[in-house]
């Protein structure tokens, strides 16, 4: 996409998401706004620009949306649509949410709010050393044990869901088929890039709030932005955000599960670093629900846990480095 087209699209998406996510708007309106913008067509035609622009806007405005389902479904080889939801791994994990045990499939994981209304749930399960994907028709009476419940947790505004499936693999309504391990890896990678972009948006949102507060807030007769201790916290927040942006550019330029995992891990750490510094600078006002900061804090805590937390990715990464006894340099000039 040309830079000018991209900038126009970015401002259009940002304005639409901001408008739909504004307090008082109907809870479905962000998804509707994305539908109106042709989000799924953009995703198919220009995935990098579409994901970067849309997810950054979702993060910047704390929007509750289900676009992650479209990213994952399309990478898993299914036609994305408003009635197709994907069951995510449990909080913190990136392992397939389900496993096949004889002729039974058990799955437990998270999902966006789309799972509560979708016709079909895509469930990836480990079957020994291979993978199966089931397209579960949620309303089918033959599957009695599909439980989708909205969770409150740290981020109730996100309307995240918990999903449990316990079903016989024999029934046609489950429509199970083998899934290539590489396809699952690609889906996780695509989802991680999207979530990392969402974290960039949220982190910049927090920094904007803290910066504005530091300039406005007067103590000891001067704006607190004049104090070096405050300035250095905000500087460290910006350093973390810029490093994350660079990791994301690298994750698109050198697409693969490694660069996506690293971007997601950096996103998790950046979300935490930026939230800590900005909360301290916002001080008392950032500790209230009158101020929007708390929504960013809670959302970034949730985002870190989706498709592998920073802690989990770092541990897996470290294990791989020790197993291979090799430190790869993934990026070249």
């Amino acid at each position, binding site marked *: 996409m040309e830079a000018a087209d991209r900038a126009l699209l970015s401002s259009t998406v940002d304005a639409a998401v901001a408008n739909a996510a504004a307090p008082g708007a109907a809870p479905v309106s962000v998804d509707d706004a994305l539908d109106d913008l042709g989000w799924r067509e953009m995703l198919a035609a220009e995935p990098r620009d579409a994901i970067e622009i849309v997810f950054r806007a979702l993060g910047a405005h704390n929007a509750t949306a289900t676009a992650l389902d479209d990213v994952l479904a399309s990478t898993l080889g299914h036609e994305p649509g408003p009635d197709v939801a994907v069951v995510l791994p449990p909080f913190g994990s990136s392992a397939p949410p389900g496993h096949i045990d004889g002729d039974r499939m058990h799955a437990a994981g998270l999902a966006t709010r789309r799972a509560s209304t979708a016709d079909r749930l895509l469930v990836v399960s480990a079957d020994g050393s291979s993978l199966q994907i089931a397209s579960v028709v949620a309303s089918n009476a033959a599957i009695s044990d599909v439980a989708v419940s909205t969770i409150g947790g740290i981020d109730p505004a996100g309307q995240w869901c918990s999903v449990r499936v316990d079903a016989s693999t024999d029934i046609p309504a489950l429509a199970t088929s083998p899934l290539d391990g590489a396809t699952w890896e690609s889906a996780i990678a695509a989802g991680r890039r999207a979530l990392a972009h969402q974290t960039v948006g949220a982190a910049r949102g927090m920094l904007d709030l803290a910066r504005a507060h530091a300039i406005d807030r007067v103590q000891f007769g001067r704006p607190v932005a004049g*104090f070096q201790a405050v300035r250095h916290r905000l500087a460290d927040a910006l350093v973390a955000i810029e490093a994350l942006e660079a990791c994301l550019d690298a994750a698109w330029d050198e697409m693969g599960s490694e660069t996506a995992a690293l971007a997601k891990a950096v996103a998790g750490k950046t979300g935490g670093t930026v939230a800590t510094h900005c909360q301290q600078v916002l001080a008392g006002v950032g500790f209230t629900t009158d101020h929007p900061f708390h929504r960013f804090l809670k959302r970034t805590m949730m985002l870190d846990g989706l498709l592998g937390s920073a802690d989990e990715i770092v541990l897996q990464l470290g294990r791989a480095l020790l197993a291979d006894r090799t430190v790869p340099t993934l990026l070249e000039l």
Partner: protein
Amino acid sequence: MTTGFVPPSNRGLEGGDPPDIAEFRAALRAWLDAHHDELAPTYAAPGTLDEHVAQMQRVKSLLFDAGWMRYGWPERVGGLGGSPMLRTELGATMAGRDLIDPGMYSLVEVLAPTLIDFASPELAADVVPRLLSGAEMWCQGFSEPGSGSDLASLACRATPDGAPATAASWIINGQKVWTSLAQYSERCVLLTRTGTPESRHRGITTFFVDMDTPGISVVPLEMINGVREFAEVFFDDVEVPAERMLGELHGGWGVAMSILPYERSSCFWQRIAYLYQRLQRLVEVVPEDDRTAEVVGNAYLQLHALRARSRATQHRLADGATLGAETSIDKVLVASAEHATYDAARRLLPGVVATDDGIVGEIWRAEYLYSRAATIYGGTAEVQRNIIARRLLDLGEEG
């Protein structure tokens, strides 16, 4: 390989277009593999500073003769042209193979461009090839006892022998400090005060000084790791010809600042390659358990984020961007990642760093201690954050 790039030693030095970076990288790696034995250090590890300096100059000489050291430099100073990223790649590849120390090598990356941009064409053509080929070592006379973070307060005085515009020579008096490798250097790029003491950055002039000029004395300082890499340099009525002025009279601040884009791009890329190599060395010897995995994984994550950021900076520079305050972000990241790498080593090899008097302990201990300078040299971590706050976050003045 579509343009048929052939390693320069095999084709003569004058023909052919400069290679693109992928061709260059592949051909360079093959050449370095083939010449491994010639290039490898001839001393037993860890080696002395004398041996490290001799190694770097020997490697530069071999690479210059084979042509590699000439890519990315303009033809008017003995280069073979091509993107400056070629020389960035060369330095990083050598640092990643432990053939040179990136800190010492950085003097080439920052001082050759200074001469190319600010010296007379004749002077640049005469001296730059000597630096590139390892025939000479140069040092950088910037910091003073009273001027560290506040470089614009420097006081080392240059006085014209006659009227400033027509003086045939200048007389320099004063002191520099933290001057790396001064005792090995044939030349010094020196910042002097030519305006009033209060003129700050408006009254500084740069000179290119021969270190064997009468009146210069060098007193090496022992660093925290026992190495005498940097020095105090004293100037006592040192006479420098006027044609050795780099840039304009009172234009020295611009000369000093022109170094920043190189220091923050190619030099960082080379240090990053070195840090990856150190983490590689660490993962080869540490136990395989989850505590270790977490420490190693976190260090790798920091290196990757730094490398991603630095890669973007190299591309911006190559695309013609003017690098500025945003490179303070690169500087914060490189310092943090260097600390993280050696903190990992210290945590995972505690007895080695603290009590091992063998070669392995000596190397890790010296490097660990040296790594603590990462948040101090080249602009402290605090100065970088001040710049980020003022220039990138637009937080207004302090206080």
